[in-house]
């Protein structure tokens, strides 16, 4: 299938100077846009954040910060792995070229003309409010993805504040190191114990940097699913759009059929300005009416075929989308469980370090 080497060579490109990094990121964005438009029924893996968000004070909000750049590189690598392991997406030729083709990839993508297939945001918004019979499962899913997005953002925000405060607690202990050292200078028997305990306080204060750095990986795992929620919503929106389109087409067909019937029977069931004006200013000649009926009948025929294919499309979409959603759910449950386990493991490690340091300090104090 895909060789790992190809993936890595892309990632290595990330270590290039600043402008090329930004270009690279934009190419990732292009790839993702292409995939989202081309496979609207797929929950397309999200990109890592462009700009540092949910930062706590120590972590630089600077996008040039090496830690941030490194984490974003890992995120981009992860994105490619996700696409590569997706049963449908991994077979895409553009994706394959992204990994293998050095130059001219951008042009290749644009040549596919995928932008034309993209739905306008306005149309999508319209659809949200006007669709009459959306599939219930999609409505629920959309609601879920909204809630998921909300809860994960909240979680990430609070986690950042928690990290900030924890940092403060650890760092203040460093002051003990200094004062114990100064105090030990005036003591005789107590001096050694104090001095060595102070050293352990310094170790304790320094330990928080690594602890919080590790926690950032957990935050990144949460962020991925925060962004995944958006991808979920995109699929729901696509369904809404298709459903809306279908409903509009059905409505249009119905009104055309009605018009036809009215023209044929001469009865006016529905009010229309044209109908009124024709009543007031005289009716049309039979030939004109015949011509109109013929046009309508053609349009009705077209419309019925279109409706049929739209219906089919809609059902296919729902089927394949739902299959991918089920796949996504499994992946999500698995990944988040793993993330929670690794978070618990991190906390356990932090507790053990804490116990170690304070036990060492206690021993020093006991020698006072």
């Amino acid at each position, binding site marked *: 299938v895909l060789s790992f080497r190809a993936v890595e060579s892309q990632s290595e490109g990330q270590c290039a100077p600043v402008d090329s990094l930004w270009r690279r990121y934009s190419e990732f964005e292009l790839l993702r846009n292409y995939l989202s438009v081309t496979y609207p029924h797929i929950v397309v893996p999200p990109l890592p954040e462009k700009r540092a968000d949910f930062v706590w004070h120590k972590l630089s909000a600077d996008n040039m910060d090496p830690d941030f750049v490194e984490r974003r590189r890992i995120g981009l690598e992860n994105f490619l792995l996700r696409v590569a392991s997706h049963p449908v997406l991994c077979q895409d030729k553009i994706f394959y070229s992204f990994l293998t083709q050095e130059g001219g990839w951008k042009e290749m993508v644009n040549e596919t003309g995928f932008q034309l297939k993209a739905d306008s945001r306005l149309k999508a918004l319209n659809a949200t409010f006007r669709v009459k019979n959306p599939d219930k499962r999609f409505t629920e899913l959309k609601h879920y993805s909204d809630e998921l997005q909300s809860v994960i953002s909240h979680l990430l925000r609070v986690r950042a504040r*928690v990290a900030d405060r924890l940092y403060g607690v650890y760092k*203040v202990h460093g002051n003990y190191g200094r004062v114990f050292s100064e105090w030990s200078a005036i003591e005789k028997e107590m001096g050694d*114990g104090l001095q060595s*305990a102070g050293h352990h306080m310094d170790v304790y204060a320094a330990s928080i940097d690594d602890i919080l750095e590790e926690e950032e990986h957990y935050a990144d795992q949460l962020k991925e699913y925060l962004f995944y929620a958006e991808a979920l919503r995109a699929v729901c929106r696509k369904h809404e759009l298709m459903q809306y389109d279908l409903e509009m087409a059905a409505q249009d067909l119905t009104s055309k059929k009605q018009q036809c019937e009215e023209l044929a029977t001469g009865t006016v069931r529905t009010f229309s300005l044209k109908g009124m004006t024709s009543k007031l200013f005289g009716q049309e000649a039979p030939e004109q009416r015949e011509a109109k009926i013929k046009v309508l009948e053609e349009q009705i025929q077209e419309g019925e075929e279109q409706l049929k294919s739209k219906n089919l499309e809609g059902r296919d979409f729902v089927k394949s989308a739902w299959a991918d959603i089920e796949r996504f759910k499994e992946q999500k449950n698995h990944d988040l*469980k793993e993330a929670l386990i690794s978070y618990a493991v991190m906390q356990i490690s932090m507790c053990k370090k804490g116990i170690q340091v304070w036990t060492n300090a206690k021993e020093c104090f006991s020698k006072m």
Partner: protein
Amino acid sequence: SAGAPQPLPSSGPKSLREMPHPLATSSSEEMGPALTPSPDLLLPRSIADKDLSLPNGTPVDTSSPASSSSLLNRLQLDDDLDGETRDLFVTVDDPKKHVCTMETYITYRVTTKTTRAEFDLPEYSVRRRYQDFDWLRNKLEESQPTHLIPPLPEKFVVKGVVDRFSEEFVETRRKALDKFLKRITDHPVLSFNEHFNVFLTAKDLNAYKKQGMALLSKVGESVKYVTGGYKLRSRPLEFAAIGEYLDTFSLKLGTIDRIAQRIIKEQLEYLVELREYGPVYSTWGGLEVELSEPLEGVSACIGNCCTALEELSEDMTEDFLPVLREYILYSESMKNVLKKRDQVQAEYEAKLEAVALKKEDRPKVPTDVEKCQDRVECFNADLKADMERWQNNKRQDFRQLLMGMADKNIQYYEKCLTAWESIIPLLQDKPETK
């Protein structure tokens, strides 16, 4: 050997044993480290008793209680009061609130168990309030000015937000009052103080207090050591060293107090965030199906960590900070005693100079100069003995305090560890295939 005034024993780092007491006989070495004083050397029960005299017949000046007590002090120098030799036990417990028309206050039960002859009964139980302890401390400072008197917890609550009837405040205070009395109990001189005895035993302390006030004006007990206006040229090396030590010591303690307070503050702010953090996992759990239990588990776990952290902060506030503050107060009162010592020495030196300037051929030194020298030497001896005792107790107290601090932190992390370890199986659990 009584006679010409000796050079001040306190100049130069000599050990107490090397210094001859002007009133001592050559057989002073034989007295050795007696554990209990012979009946002749018991402190007078009442200030008016003047029948005391030393083995060599020199009458002991009971109007200056310091000299007899310092003698006692020297005899008991090596007395490391361990459990077997202890004959006085005092405890402070059982705080109770009293609501009266005029005021509301707390009393504490003070229980005494003793085999000492100075006490009529082997056991006593009385109730005392803070102002009684305050009175006792003032009396000790007045009657034993050459000794280091342990500190009391602060009279007024500085922060203003703390409720002085809250359980935590009362308990913190009780511990401090208990420590105060125990320190006096452990002191070979202070524990025999008459006011201390009355404090432990009297049913009606207020009556004694009033009586004491009347007597005070007659005997002028407190006047003796108020020597005003003399300036010491230079503090002897070893006392200067003590002064410098105390200065740096109280400075460092002040810093530690600030650091500890800052840590508690940061911990409480961390706790605030944690309290918001935990429930979000629970909210999330409500959205999920398969992840519901794991997320709830994490939420509960964080909740447990919150409880543990709250306990840690409370412990540090109640047990750690007050002891630091006590030692800072202790240092301050000790520095004052050093200053008093300087005053006494200054007075002696001034009077000595005055005599020398008169250039009279007097075979005998005027008694008041002799008395001054006596006072200086006793003061120095008492202070040095107390300093040594204080240093040792301080070391033990801080060893215990800091080990306690480490312990509390270990316990906190152990509680959190247990919480996180217990949810690992929950997180790894695979749901039953339905």
